[in-house]
């Protein structure tokens, strides 16, 4: 049995930099955390996958602008009209021009659509997650640290929000909501922005209570620790205690929540598209592509396969990335 080289690397302790004078030079906390993160191979793989998705999400609109990628172009010649618009050829009409084939019914290049879809899916999921996490963390910290009537009011508000039938509301108010945003927001009402904003706000505004509860619980235990008393004794302001003393102790749960909610919102977006209140076709998202693929489940497997695979990969990598980050940020996590 032989050790692989990389395994030996992992078990190696952090090498303190030796200065010319022979004294140990300390490394900054961020450096230490990054060092720990880099040594975890699984985290690094998922990190690069996530980076790749983000790059795809950023680059594809540029490609569309330039004209290289044409996610909205039709090409009926590539389709078999007799079979209801299924692409000609194996695997959705894969060819050198269309690496992942073409979309049934429209004949658009599927790679262009998918990469453009990633842009929209990620934008919606990340915006909604940020809305939910920011509201949840701020209200959770305030609620947990203040206690008393502030805690009581926020607590009742959380109960109310949790007991609200959010999916029903999302469906019922979608027409009015989207119309409202179309009126408020500048730009062409025919594009998908009002739908997107509506989706983000509803997902975010209904997603925060669980985070707030979790954070409140954490804060309740943190505020009883003596370092909070010590901070108050040194004259720290309330804001300093919230964001300098308490918040750094919450990174692990916040990151875990972020990585749990973020993929959940990617799939929530898909579900909403399926129900017809998400981003409307022709603007692609991973969700509405998947929703449409159900119509071709028997005749064009690749139409279902690629978006599903992309979804699965992003969900798994985000979870692994979150785990790795938590281990790296946790100074007690030296395994």
């Amino acid at each position, binding site marked *: 049995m032989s050790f692989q080289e990389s395994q030996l690397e992992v078990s190696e302790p952090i090498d303190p930099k030796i200065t010319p004078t022979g004294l140990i*030079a300390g490394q900054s906390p961020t450096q230490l955390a990054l060092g720990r993160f880099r040594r975890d191979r699984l985290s690094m793989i998922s990190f690069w996958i996530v980076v790749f998705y983000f790059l795809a999400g950023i680059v594809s609109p540029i490609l569309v602008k330039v004209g290289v990628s044409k996610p909205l172009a039709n090409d009926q010649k590539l389709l078999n009209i007799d079979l209801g618009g299924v692409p000609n050829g194996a695997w959705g009409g894969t060819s050198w021009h269309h690496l992942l084939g073409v979309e049934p019914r429209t004949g658009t290049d599927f790679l262009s659509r998918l990469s453009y879809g990633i842009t929209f899916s990620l934008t919606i999921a990340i915006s909604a997650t940020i809305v939910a996490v920011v509201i949840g963390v701020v209200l959770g910290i305030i609620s947990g640290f203040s206690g008393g009537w502030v805690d009581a009011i926020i607590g009742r508000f959380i109960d109310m929000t949790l007991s609200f039938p959010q999916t029903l509301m999302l469906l019922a108010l979608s027409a009015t909501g989207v119309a409202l945003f179309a009126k408020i927001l500048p730009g062409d009402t025919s594009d998908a922005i009002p739908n997107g904003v509506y989706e983000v706000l509803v997902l975010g505004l209904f997603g925060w209570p669980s985070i707030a509860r979790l954070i409140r619980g954490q804060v309740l235990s943190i505020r009883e620790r003596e370092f909070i008393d010590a901070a108050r*004794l040194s004259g720290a302001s309330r804001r300093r205690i919230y964001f300098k003393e308490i918040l750094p102790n919450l990174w692990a749960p916040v990151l875990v929540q972020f990585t749990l909610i973020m993929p959940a919102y990617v799939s929530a977006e898909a579900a909403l598209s399926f129900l017809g209140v998400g981003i409307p076709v022709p603007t692609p998202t991973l969700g509405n592509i998947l929703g449409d693929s159900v119509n071709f489940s028997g005749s064009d497997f690749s139409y279902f396969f690629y978006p599903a695979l992309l979804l699965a990969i992003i969900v798994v990598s985000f979870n692994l990335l979150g785990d790795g980050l938590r281990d790296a940020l946790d100074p007690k996590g030296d395994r």
Partner: protein
Amino acid sequence: MSELAHAATQLDVTAPPILTVQDLQMYFPVKYHGIFQRTIGHVQAVDGVSFEVPKGGSLGLVGESGCGKSTTGRLITRLYEPTDGEINFDGRNIAHLSQRELLPLRREIQMIFQDPATSLNPRHTVGAIVAAPLLIHKVVPKNKVLPRVQELLEVVGLNPEHYNRYPHEFSGGQRQRIGIARSLTLQPKLLVADEPVSALDVSIQAQVINLLQDVQREFGIGFLFIAHDLAIVRHFCPEIAVMYLGKIVEIADRETLYNHPHHPYTQALLSAVPDVKQAAIGGRRERIRLEGDVPSPINPPSGCRFRTRCSMAQEICSKVEPPLLQVGSRHKVACHFPGELGQAPQRPVTTAICGVDDQGNAVSGATADIQLNAPGYDTTWLDLKTGQRTGA
């Protein structure tokens, strides 16, 4: 360190007080959580405590768990706002100052916490922890913060190069040193040490106590030393107050308190301390066993709070609360029958002062004739042998 350097701290009678506490009271409301929240009682955690801490000296505060020692410490650092009473620090009553008014005072009064595991933020480096007070109060320019932090770490005996390590990379004793460094950052005049060594190994306890003594000598800091370890208090504090159920029952200088305790509770407390010398001789001191539990501070006994567990309790004890009576030049005791073990007087000595008869019933026309419960000591006191007031 030579043996002499860490001899027991001596009392400086002439030192002016840095802190004077008068009738300090802390009642925590007990709430009933129904449809409407209402207060159904109070935990009388601290009830009328008075004492002085001399400049650069130290006062020990001992007592069993739940007797209000820690609450007293937290009141003085103003982590709590007292229900009533005065906290005079450097001639200024700080009992009811607002958080904003307290800010400049935070530099003067600091605290060392009991548990080094929770008193340091695990997400901050040692440097950040020690530097935080400097940054908040903007005492030194930004580029001088790190040298100052390293200087402080050196003072408490840590490697100054370790400023960017996390607390978990240090041992318990080292962490307590970090806590001490943090409390010294602002060069306070008063340090409240809330059981600073009770979470440490015995071998480390001595090191930390020696460090505290060095620090006290070097910077002239006044200490309120809260502990339940009587041996450590004896070493560190030339003056000691014993608390029971929110009140001071006896306060005296070290020699008097340890060699001639006059309050039955102090006697019981001291008899519970294991004595190595006596064990070596083979002799065994008689142990005073207290029966029962400490009564609830929500509903404390009438009169003397210790009477439910006191072997000498008589009728007067349930009717009249004993005043903190001065019985020596630096000795006060709150008991109707004060005296060394086995030499307690037959009649209560407090009748004239309280204006009551031997059974504790009010005598018409008589009034209490001295101001009770004042901090510090009078020049005259009641001599227990003669029953007369005498002076030095």
